[in-house]
């Protein structure tokens, strides 16, 4: 077997699948102008745990992720089918307006994208302001709370008015995490959040995830197997099929997926035979 560091103890395995569920996906598929990018995504996202979407590039993981906060609404010709349940509501069936949905499902992007003309403080509270909250005491509280959670508070507490561009890459990404956390979402989507960062910042953020999951449910896309093994509780493995559409191959608790996967293709992937 592949020697992989897994963060769960055997007793936690059972918990992952049997605990409360934050989101449920049933036969979710995304297509662009008729061409399917990903299909057959069906799994439950356990609450307050880290779920990783893994697989080689092109397997549709990011596409699936972006469907969860309805970013595909911006793309012409994009069609999302299937059921995406957040709690009791179907995200796409008109249950929640997208703008409101995005306060409950936040996102952190691959490359840090702080707003360049805003200060650090303004960046963090931007979500709150957009949604109509302007009371200073609330904003200050939320800013401190999320910056602490993103392990950035100590570094920036004395320069909250400084421009976001004065931060390093790793700090900027943590700023983006704080910004996403400030609106207190239930779910946090992370699209390869450390792939553009140096190893130290990567490590920092990975450690962060462990603490963050008590606050939000995390779904992370990563092309780095070892990272998935380190941080996640549940793993969903995707692969590009012959029709060039990604499909879900296997979903299992991390420990199981990396030691005794059900599917041969999963085994090939984690043994490094491709991707």
């Amino acid at each position, binding site marked *: 077997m592949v020697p992989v560091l897994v963060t769960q103890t055997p007793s936690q395995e059972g918990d992952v699948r049997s605990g409360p569920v934050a989101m449920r996906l049933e036969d979710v598929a995304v297509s662009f102008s008729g061409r399917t990018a990903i299909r057959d995504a069906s799994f439950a996202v356990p609450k307050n745990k880290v779920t990783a979407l893994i697989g080689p590039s092109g397997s549709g993981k990011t596409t699936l992720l972006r469907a969860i906060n309805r970013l595909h609404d911006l793309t012409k010709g994009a069609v999302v089918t299937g059921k995406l349940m957040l709690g009791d509501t179907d995200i796409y069936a008109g249950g929640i307006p997208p*703008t409101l949905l995005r*306060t409950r499902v936040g996102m952190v992007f691959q490359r840090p994208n702080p707003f360049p003309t805003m200060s650090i403080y303004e960046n963090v509270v931007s979500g709150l302001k957009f949604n109509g909250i302007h009371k200073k005491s*609330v904003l200050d509280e939320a800013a401190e*709370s999320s910056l602490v959670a993103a392990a950035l508070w100590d570094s920036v507490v004395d320069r909250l008015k400084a421009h976001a561009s004065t931060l390093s890459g790793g700090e900027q990404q943590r700023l983006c995490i704080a910004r996403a956390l400030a609106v207190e979402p239930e779910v946090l989507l992370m699209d390869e959040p450390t792939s553009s960062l140096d190893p130290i910042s990567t490590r920092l953020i990975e450690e962060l995830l462990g603490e963050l999951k008590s*606050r939000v449910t995390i779904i992370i896309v990563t092309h780095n197997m070892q990272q998935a093994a380190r941080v996640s509780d549940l793993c969903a493995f995707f692969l590009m099929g012959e029709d060039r559409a990604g499909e879900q191959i296997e979903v299992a608790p991390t420990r199981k997926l990396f030691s005794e996967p059900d599917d041969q293709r999963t085994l090939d992937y984690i043994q490094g035979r491709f991707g």
Partner: protein
Amino acid sequence: MMSTTIEGVPPDPMLERRELIQQVAHKTLKRRMLRSRVVVGLCGFALLLALIPLFAILFSLVQKGLRWWSIDFFTKTPQFPSLLYPNDVGGIANALIGSLVIDTLAAVIAIPIGVVTGLFLAESDGQLANALRMTAEIMTGLPSILLGIFAYQMLVIGFHEWGIKLPGIGFAGIAGSFALGILMIPIIIKASENALRSVPFTIREAALALGARNGVVSRKVVIPTALPGLITAVLLALSRAVGETAPILWVIGASTVVTWNPLHEMASMPLQIFQSSTSPYTSLRAETWGIALTLVIIVLFLNLGSRLLAAWLRRERR
């Protein structure tokens, strides 16, 4: 999403905040979405407003100008409308040929100077080149009437003072070419520097490696490669010069006959439009639409031509 209060457990500030945020977000949602739709709609409306003048002008041009187009219009010289034939204004052959001669001469002046200076800027770096580049930039932004003053001072008065015998009193088509040429040069410089710079250095290196001198390399290799870009530059400058009135306002004189001699006074289409638009004769005023339509067609031709060429270039480069 209710936070249930359990006996003895202090309320979680995070959960409280979450509820507050959701509450406020819910409350303000309708207003925000409405405002967003309205403002974005206004932007679309602004775009429509911006396009209306274009269509209005094109419409007027075609509606009022097309009827003037005829063989006579393009081949005859103008006549003052007489009492018997108030609508017979002749044609614009003098202006047409005048424009042709003046603009061609302007291009002949401007192209060598513009392209070679562009080549210089493309080849070199440093203070001198930067200063020159800035100068060209500033010149493109200057009001073109200043060039008219310059041409007047230098040539019309100059001809006079230096005793150069001209058929007229100092006005000549060539003075107009001079002014328009200076107008075109900075435009050509800017665009041709870009065109020449986009020729990959590897091509030059290859030629140099074969033992050719730099000058030859430029002439035989770089310029031909950049030729489409250079032609684009020239067409762009030409489309601008053909429509300009201010630089030639008082330097080319006037002529009602067709003359191909640039040392003569000449007529020109934009100038003709300018003068006829305030003419007391209704028919002459109406005729300006025909001239304007002709001018616009020519300018659009040149402008679109240069843009299509540039787009074709970009595609070829991929």
